[in-house]
């Protein structure tokens, strides 16, 4: 499987480490009244779709960047690769 890195171009997936659902970016607000329940959902509940899935991949054997890879879990087709930093900033994250 080849991952088309937004900066470095096509790289073999063996250079990357899979970190699971990209929803990990959406860390709940610890000061919220529902924080306990939100963190339970954040830490333990995962969707397991047969189809398109947004995932976090870490370029461990490359430039150590975090990526959000949109991958079809049935075919391994990859439709989109983004820098996780850009995705987080689009969601309003500043840190």
């Amino acid at each position, binding site marked *: 499987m080849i991952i088309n890195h937004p900066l470095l171009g096509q790289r073999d997936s063996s250079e990357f480490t899979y970190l699971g659902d990209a929803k990990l970016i959406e860390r709940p607000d610890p000061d919220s009244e529902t924080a306990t329940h939100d963190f339970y959902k954040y830490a333990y509940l995962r969707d397991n779709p047969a189809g398109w899935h947004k995932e976090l991949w870490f370029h461990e054997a490359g430039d*150590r960047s975090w990526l959000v890879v949109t991958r079809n879990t049935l075919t391994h087709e990859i439709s989109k690769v983004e820098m996780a930093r850009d995705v987080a900033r689009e969601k309003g994250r500043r840190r």
Partner: protein
Amino acid sequence: MHNLQTITALGGKTPRIDVFDHITIIENDSVALASVTARMGREAGCYKVLQKLLGVVPETGRAVLHNTETGFYMGLDQWMLTAPRVSHELIADQLKKLFGDNASVTEQSGAWVCLDIIGRAMPDMCERLCAVPVRQMVAGDVQRTVIHKMGCFVIRCMANDQLRILGPRSTAATLHHALMTAATSTA
């Protein structure tokens, strides 16, 4: 008074040099290293200092082979700067004064071993060591990759038959062994 003797990454009093007919492997202990990471919101200030030091900000996958200071891309808004150790032993302190709050600077001289590979068999050796397209790379291209499970930087130098490998200093002997094995297999 202690009478201390510094040793190289491979444990010798002087840098190790292994000479074959087709390749020479040189332990280069004359390089001082420091990493520079632009701080969020201060990127422009960081670029300005880099430009002043190197002439240009190293682009993705590129090294700038400048006079005294050289630098190469490590990751997004991260660079490794190098300079002669004899004049820049305290490179991180020297750079921090220049970058101020625009970047985080970390001393890296004690973290890496620098091994230069010179000779006509350099591309063959590189192909045995890592999955870097060395024959497509031009002078100044740099890639971070894995050699025998060790994360290394591979830099294509100005000389056509020279490659620089920066690897983890704590496993310098293992990396050197991998290079020696590859050198033997390309003989």
